């Protein structure tokens, strides 16, 4: 297990550098001068331009900028905003808890609804409830999140007035966005739960469990459900990782100043260092979550042995 862990970590290193280098190049390709952007229509004074260039290395060749930046990143310093000179780490300290609260609530909803729904669908396979749920989840999948957000905001938020329609620092203002965020992924997860449960149902070890005289409920709980949960738990973990990076659309609609909100604002303000910082953070988060998921997989499923 430990050797597998080490091997996976070593595999991550090239992926990390390839991705961050790609991001770095593309962000530098964004047309327009990031220093000029800080001065709007006014001309940039020569001495200030020199100061900016010295501080952010904008005049160095691209590869050198990349290595200087990576040096900082490896000491957990993501740089600072060109616009406000605020350290990006500070920005994370503020924005990350908000995105994490939203993500946590959405994933909790997703798990609580999708797992029982998937089980119910599998148990009523091809009957009315199953068919109805398949159609409903499919439609839920096809609705774009922003439409869902807008509709929820107008109906539940404005017309019924049950929940706040934008962020006011209270936990309550996270509820509506979390529900909106959870709808699509709940549909995916419920369908996955149904499929894996049906696939597990055909496995030999279930027949063995029944043959040795276990009750139907014990066969289901201990043998079928546990095995079918493995891919579902994986999906939940990956979703959580993705949501930590902020839900761009949902945070925008409900005005939650989380990570997704910050990156859209940085793009509007041409704040290249923030765009880079957040992207690099997102890549790291993704790689770490995937590593954890792989280890979880190896631990949950004794048939998977990698070394």
């Amino acid at each position: 297990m430990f050797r597998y862990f080490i091997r996976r970590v070593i595999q991550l290193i090239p992926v990390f550098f390839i991705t961050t280098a790609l991001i770095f190049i593309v962000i530098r390709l964004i047309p327009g001068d990031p220093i000029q952007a800080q001065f709007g229509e006014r001309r940039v004074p020569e001495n200030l331009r020199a100061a900016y260039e010295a501080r952010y290395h904008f005049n160095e060749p691209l590869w050198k900028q990349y290595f200087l930046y990576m040096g900082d990143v490896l000491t957990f310093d993501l740089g600072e905003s060109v616009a406000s000179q605020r350290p990006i780490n500070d920005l994370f300290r503020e924005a990350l808890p908000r995105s994490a609260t939203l993500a946590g609530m959405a994933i909790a909803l997703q798990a609580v609804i999708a797992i029982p729904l998937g089980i119910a669908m599998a148990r009523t396979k091809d009957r009315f409830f199953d068919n109805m749920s398949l159609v409903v989840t499919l439609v839920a999948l096809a609705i774009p999140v922003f439409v869902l957000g807008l509709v929820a905001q107008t109906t539940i938020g404005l017309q019924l007035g049950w929940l706040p329609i934008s962020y006011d620092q209270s936990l309550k203002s996270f509820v509506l966005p979390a529900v909106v965020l959870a709808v699509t992924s709940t549909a995916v997860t419920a369908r996955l739960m149904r499929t894996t449960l049906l696939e597990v149902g055909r496995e030999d070890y279930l027949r063995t469990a029944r043959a040795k005289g276990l009750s139907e409920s014990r066969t289901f709980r201990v043998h079928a459900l546990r095995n079918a949960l493995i891919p579902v738990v994986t999906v939940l973990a990956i979703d959580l990782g993705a949501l930590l990076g902020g839900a761009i659309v949902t945070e925008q609609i409900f005005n939650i100043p989380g990570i997704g909100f910050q990156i859209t604002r940085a793009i509007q303000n041409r704040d290249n260092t923030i765009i880079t910082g957040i992207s690099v953070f997102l890549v790291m988060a993704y790689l770490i979550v995937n590593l954890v998921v792989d280890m979880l997989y190896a631990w949950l499923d004794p048939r998977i042995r990698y070394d």
Partner: protein
Amino acid sequence: MTDAFDPSSRPGIALAASSAEDVGDPRTFWGDAWRILRRKWLFWVSLTLIVIFVTMAVFPQLYVWPSPSPDDPSGLHCKLTDTRLGPSFSEHWYGTDVQGCDYYAQVTYGARVSLTVALFATLITVGLGILLGGLAGYYGGFLDSIISRTADGFFALPYLVGAIIVLSALTTSDGRQTWHVTVAIGSLGWPAVVRLYRSTVLQVKQLEYVQAARALGASDFRILTRHILPNAVAPTLVYATISMGAVISVEATLSYLGIGLPIDSISWGIMLQEASNKIERSGHLLWFPTGYLIAASLAFVLMGEQLREAFDPRFR
């Protein structure tokens, strides 16, 4: 039933018949798939929807009349005094928008740009994916490592963030054009196709007829295009169909965020963006484009699922 990637299921080669009556009736992989598909009602539903939306995109004059004329170049019958009328059976079926333009005509014309972006973005995705996935799967080794690790890298960045960054990089001072959005969406989707196509190529290249072709002296190019491609493309085709549906939705999301299509284009995403702060009083501005968007997206996703079941031997 035969395995989907079994060489004997290639077109033209007779399959070992399961019953005596089948002898002499050559059955092909694609023929089998058709036999399964035509019995499914969901296949016919999604096909009908796709035909409706495709004709709407190519020949909007079939659905909207009168067509654009010199008096009314946009074809939207705009009359500023008619702003935000509700839907009615007599004149404006879907009501009018803020400028007093007929909403039914707009929603219909919107099909063209949505489907064009979806089609070309998917073509870019699938083209790049098949090219790179084929090379990676066929040659393996160092080339495979480079391609696969780069694909992994693309997965590491959330799709929307990637699209926003690529779009900002593509946008020049002349503003954004439709092809910018197409390229941005297309250039981010290929890693999934690489993974999928690479894994099918790995399976197919082991098969005897590929070995035979190689023994006969066929070039790598010929083996990849004539022998491997036709037998490995089915899962990618399924993915491409589902991806068409997904792209329709992604394009609308980007347009809603204000970083998608140019603001003067007639597209469901742009319509929804304009409707977003008028939902409370003029709900029809939201419901009609949303309905079309969901129907179009769902049609392709459903079609993809039906194709998957028809192509995948495990469902037969």
